[in-house]
């Protein structure tokens, strides 16, 4: 079986859950005997005038670091195509504008048109002037890719709304079935004040798709209830976690205090302010704790102000955005990991913490709560319960040891191979249905 996948670049190139999930999933699929043609946006800028880049699997390997001894047979089942685009995961239209302005200021050319669907291959320049235009431009190129690969794939799989138009276009061109993957909904990103354009694209993608995969039951329910997608079309496929083959040595601890960590984008969705309020409560009782907020985001300044106002800035530290090895280091330095997300479709980071033997506290409003037993679960808004849980995990070693060791066991059993087998079954179903039509 062959799949044309519109995904996102792998870590460490692109940080965030989306790239990580794509990586684990494609590897799992390869192990299950699925051949993947992996199409990703990759900003080449003006250095290269082509729109599509066929990338050697071996180059990808080198680009993303050693993937381990078993990588060869997996990479043999994958091919990589880069579409020249400056889209990045999780970007909002407002952020894209910011990003694009910088791009224009750098003196590079801009692609602009009023009706993107009518444009063929006559681009005069690069990158759309706003995110919606870029999404559509990406779709036009994707259609070209699908045309050129005709007969070389059986099913199309698109990740996250930015690639949904690409998925739809590929389906129109090839007539192959389309599966879209909901890693997050607009409601997760923006609360109730959704961007209606984004919502419309998400809905269009899911309506056009033969199946919708949701990363949790939580997300599945949102898709059904708020987007009006027929329930029998939506399946839940929980994410898994990949174990790094070579685990590095634990870094030397600088501070002797216990460390409680929040790691993620500092945005509304992730509930950073609940972490701060809980920290203030814990610090009233325990002198030997430090809180670390790792990441950056639009709420960061707000959170720094709140920390200053609470008078805990000598025990509450900010690391800024962490990448690669630093993320790993941060997990290893932690004694408790907290993910107080207001709305989290899945949430892969607690799994990574558990992998580093760190007990975790997660909000009940996260998809990952559906698959974990050995994690303390609290309502994100219940600051007292969160403070209690942090206090307990710090003060009672029996508790934290139990969560750490059982948690490690539990997370070890969440394998991408199993998730991929489920995805493969979905592929088989839609291919079968497609033939009948």
């Amino acid at each position: 079986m062959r799949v044309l996948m519109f995904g996102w670049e792998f870590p460490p190139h692109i940080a965030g859950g989306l790239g990580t999930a794509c990586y684990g999933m494609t590897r799992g699929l390869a192990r299950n005997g699925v051949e993947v043609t992996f199409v990703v946006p990759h900003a080449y800028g003006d250095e290269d005038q082509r729109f599509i880049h066929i990338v050697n699997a071996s180059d990808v390997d080198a680009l993303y670091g050693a993937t381990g001894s078993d990588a060869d047979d997996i990479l043999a089942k994958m091919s990589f195509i880069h579409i020249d685009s400056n889209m990045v995961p999780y970007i909002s239209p407002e952020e894209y504008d910011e990003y694009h302005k910088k791009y224009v200021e750098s003196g590079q050319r801009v692609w602009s048109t009023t009706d993107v669907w009518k444009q063929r291959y006559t681009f005069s320049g690069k990158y759309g002037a706003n995110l919606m235009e870029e999404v559509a431009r990406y779709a036009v190129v994707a259609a070209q890719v699908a045309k050129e690969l005709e007969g070389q794939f059986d099913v199309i799989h698109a990740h996250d709304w930015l690639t949904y138009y690409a998925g739809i276009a590929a389906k129109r061109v090839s007539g192959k079935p389309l599966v879209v993957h909901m890693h997050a909904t607009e409601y997760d990103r923006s609360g109730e004040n959704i961007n209606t354009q984004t919502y419309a694209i998400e809905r269009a993608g899911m309506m056009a798709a033969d199946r919708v995969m949701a990363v949790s039951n939580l997300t599945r329910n949102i898709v059904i209830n708020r987007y009006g997608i027929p329930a029998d079309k939506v399946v839940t496929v929980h994410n898994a976690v990949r174990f790094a083959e070579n685990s590095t040595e634990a870094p030397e601890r600088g501070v002797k205090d216990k460390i409680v960590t929040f790691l993620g984008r500092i945005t509304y969705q992730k509930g950073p302010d609940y972490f701060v309020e809980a920290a203030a409560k814990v610090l009233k009782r325990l002198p030997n704790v430090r809180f670390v907020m790792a990441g950056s985001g639009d709420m960061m300044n707000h959170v720094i102000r709140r920390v200053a106002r609470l008078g805990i800035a000598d025990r509450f530290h900010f690391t800024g955005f962490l990448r690669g090895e630093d993320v790993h280091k941060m997990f290893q330095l932690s004694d408790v990991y907290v993910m107080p997300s207001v709305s989290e479709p899945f949430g892969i980071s607690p799994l990574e913490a558990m992998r580093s033997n760190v007990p975790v506290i997660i909000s009940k409003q996260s998809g990952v709560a559906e698959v974990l037993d050995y994690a303390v679960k609290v309502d994100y808004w219940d600051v007292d319960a969160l403070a209690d849980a942090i206090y307990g995990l710090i003060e009672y070693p029996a508790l934290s040891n139990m969560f750490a060791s059982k948690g490690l066991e539990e997370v070890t059993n969440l394998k991408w191979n199993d998730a991929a087998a489920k995805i493969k079954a979905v592929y088989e179903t839609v291919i079968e249905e497609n033939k009948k039509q």
Partner: protein
Amino acid sequence: MKTVCLYFQVHQPWRLKKYRFFNMGKDHYYLDDLLNRSVMQKVARQCYLPMNALLLKLIKENKGKFRCTFSITGIAVEQFKAYTPEVLDSFRELAATGCVEFLAETYSHSLAALASPEDFTEQVKLHTAMLKREFGVKPTAFRNTELIYSDEIGKAVADMGFKTMLAEGARHVLGWKSPNFVYANAINQKMRLLLRNYKLSDDIAFRFSNKSWDQWPLTADKYASWLASDETTGDVINLFMDYETFGEHQHADTGIFDFMKALPKAVLAKKNELEFATVTETANKYQPVAVLHCPHMMSWADEERDITAWLGNELQNEAFSKLYAQKDKVMALNDPDFFYVWSFLQTSDHFYYMATKWLSDGDVHSYFNPYDSAYDAFVNYMNVLSDFIIELDAALAAKGKQVPSKDEKADTKSGRRNKVTVK
């Protein structure tokens, strides 16, 4: 006869390096050596050395009639010693002419006056000792960091034995009154005050190179005629500014050095109208015309002329209170390495970088700011301070002393301490 009182402020902060959470507990060197060195060498080349040479020449040429006043922070002197000892020598030469007065101030260019009278006194003592050691002078007049002044601060300074103090001629404090007279402190009327004429001072410090200013270009003759004119009433004209105005804020190619070169002659040409004097000389020449009531803090900074540039938001208040909460511990430990760090952490610039009031004076703030944002400045400062606190507690525990600060119970279980390495 009006007395022109020229006063220059010399200060460079020790800038902190990018200090991350991961450094805490491991790395106890907090300074950005490269940045500090390059800034100091650049300013020395563009300002301190040429301007000192010019002033020395002017003093000699005018045979004692050209006089001026300096205050140099202890932190600046530390950096002269580390990076540009020739600057310190040239200041010593100026001191030896007898035409230059050196004022007392806070050693670290700190906000200690806002912390407590004890902190304030301590900082001033350190600075006075430095003046004695480096320049062999005993100061009689005082300027507080950024001309921060209130009735209470004026009284505290009088209690330390100083007779004269500088302050801003802030319009909201003076009202209809002119800054061009000697005033007295409201609590201790023996304390004389010289108030900055911000209009005439800023004509040089800020507007000199501004081509959209209707008086551009400013020549020494024109400026001297303003000073002498009947519209500039009063006994004294206090021109207080950053020394870095010359060659740094106003670059050499604006003609600022030529202006300064011609100014003494132009001023002294107005015989029986204008003369130069140092701060103490000026204050002694005239009787105070009135007391100045200033119950609230004022300073020479920003449009508001208050202290909100340093203590105006929750970030600054938090950093400030956490810093001064360590004071008892630092004193109890009584270790020179810790005193050294304690000293440069107090510098007001660190708090200035955390300012978020960008409306009227944003460009001035960002000019002096090595950080991208106030938040970056705060996070970095707190990381450094947190590590300093950890080290301090550990050192105290090792010594068997424990002075828990008011709002914090220190973790003193840790034993060995890493020595803070300083140059």
